[in-house]
């Protein structure tokens, strides 16, 4: 814990030392002995280029699915810091974050405010927090303008869509077309349960995302948290023939064989590591998978890096 306090509260020189120590003592162990390069993502307090341009070091560990806290939560600032502390402990270099509204459907002001806070988070944790622009597609032109502003002016790396609409509804299509134009991925909330989820009537699942992917084969889609509670075997099978959909391994479920099955069915090149706040579950699943070190490196960050390099602006 001493190391973590130092990481967040001390001068930059100490920060760098602490982070190196963590990477030596923690990440290599926690992530199953995968060799991590010395040039890591930038620690808290350092200025750094964001992910939008320039070459990135090989071997980064990128959490493709993270969240900053809504500011209506009294402890949001401390909780955001805890997220970075957790990433430090677990050897995670960068976290792709969105901020979600506490109630859905999100209002225009609600998601604009969230994106402002995400941008603030990118500044508070430079190089560590990468931003997803969250919108409610129902706001049409305003939603598109918000995405363009976030990606082109604020260096956000992608778009986060939640459960306001099923992803196959036409209202979502302009969002996908803009994502293609900008060359950024869409992380789409998804789950498949064998019952109707009453509080999320417009939930998308792997089947919907596969259908959207067929309509837009040049889109970069990420199916969120395949171990987020739904039937992950169903989801993996539904996405087998959707090559432009990547599967985010995040979620609280740690079922043995989940990552291995996903790798066998869709291939390791389509898996991206994530936690969605279930931090040890996220890391542990990858460590536990019976895959080669090279394959785990792809999942942990290589595949996400490949997506981010396709950015057009």
């Amino acid at each position, binding site marked *: 814990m001493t190391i973590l306090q130092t990481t967040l509260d001390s001068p930059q020189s100490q920060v760098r030392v602490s982070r190196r120590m963590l990477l030596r003592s923690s990440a290599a162990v926690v992530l199953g002995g995968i060799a991590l390069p010395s040039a890591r993502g930038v620690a808290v307090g350092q200025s750094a280029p964001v992910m939008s341009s320039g070459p990135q070091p090989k071997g980064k560990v990128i959490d493709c699915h993270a969240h900053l806290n809504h500011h209506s939560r009294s402890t949001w600032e401390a909780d955001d810091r805890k997220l970075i502390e957790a990433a430090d402990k*677990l050897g995670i270099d960068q976290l792709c974050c969105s901020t979600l509204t506490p109630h859905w459907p999100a209002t225009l002001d609600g998601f604009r405010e969230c994106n402002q806070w995400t941008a603030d988070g990118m500044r508070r944790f430079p190089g560590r927090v990468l931003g997803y622009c969250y919108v409610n597609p129902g706001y049409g032109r305003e939603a598109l303008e918000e995405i363009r502003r976030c990606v082109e002016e604020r260096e956000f790396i992608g778009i986060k869509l939640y459960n306001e609409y099923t992803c196959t509804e036409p209202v979502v299509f302009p969002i996908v077309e803009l994502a293609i134009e900008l060359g950024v991925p869409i992380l789409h909330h998804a789950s498949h349960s064998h*019952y109707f989820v009453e509080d999320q009537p417009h939930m998308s699942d792997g089947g919907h995302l596969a259908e959207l992917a067929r309509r837009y084969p040049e889109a970069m889609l990420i199916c969120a948290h395949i171990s987020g509670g*739904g039937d992950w075997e169903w989801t993996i099978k539904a996405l087998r023939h959707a090559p432009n959909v990547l599967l985010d391994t995040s979620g609280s479920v*740690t079922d043995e064989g989940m990552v291995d099955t996903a790798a066998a069915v869709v291939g390791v090149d389509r898996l991206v590591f994530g936690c969605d706040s279930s931090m040890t579950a996220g890391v542990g699943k990858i460590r536990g998978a019976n895959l080669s070190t090279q394959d785990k490196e792809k999942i942990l960050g290589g595949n996400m890096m490949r997506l981010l390099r396709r950015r057009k602006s």
Partner: protein
Amino acid sequence: MIVDVNAYLGHFAFRRLRHNTAAALLALMDAKKIDRAVVSSAGAITYRNTQAGNEEVAEEVRGHSDRLIPFAVINPFYAGWQDDLQICHEEFGMTGLRLYPKWHNYQLSSPCSRELVDATTERGMVISIPIRVEDNRQRSWLLNVPDVPLEETVELVKAHPRARFILLNGIGYTGCPLGRKDNGLPSNYAIELSRLSAVLANELGQLITNLGAERVMFGTGMPFNYPDPALVKLEVLDASEADKEKIRSQNAITWLRL
């Protein structure tokens, strides 16, 4: 040494399990440096006659008693459970039980359940209760089995102060008396860590603070779960090495008289 108080053998009705034979589980334990594991029948979760599952486990662990510690699964509403308990304890050498009140459709507060807890306690056996088997959101279309409400286990530990309980696969203890300091409950229960957070909310750290490291035990849920997430929790846990050692093995050794 690492002792896992939350492991299983056999088949589960709704999902294929790997590493679910004694040989395969031991190989996985070797790979993860887990020395000993408490195992019970995964099949007995859905068998009507759970004793068939206990017999399968007894057969499977034969010759591996140095590493695999068999527990019985008993349904106190099923005919002949008293005979099954006796056989499991005296013939199979099972030193504890796992109870599935929701899967077996009974109340922990029912007279039959209380009778089973008393009979188990008389034998000096430990009672473990998996709060859940799998995430309810991925349930089969055939059934809808809720988690065991923690409030029901509060009443259970209060009603049986001499019994010893290990609560498995649970979360949210700090939101109820079970995980609070000075809660007035007997210290007759321990909490297994496989679903507890070790960072962010850090429920694991809170439980150590509130109850003491003596009341927390290591468990993985393998082969339902990857064992690694639980191992990662121990690695990142902000606790003294002495406390980690208690959680890793010493508490289980004491409770299970290993």
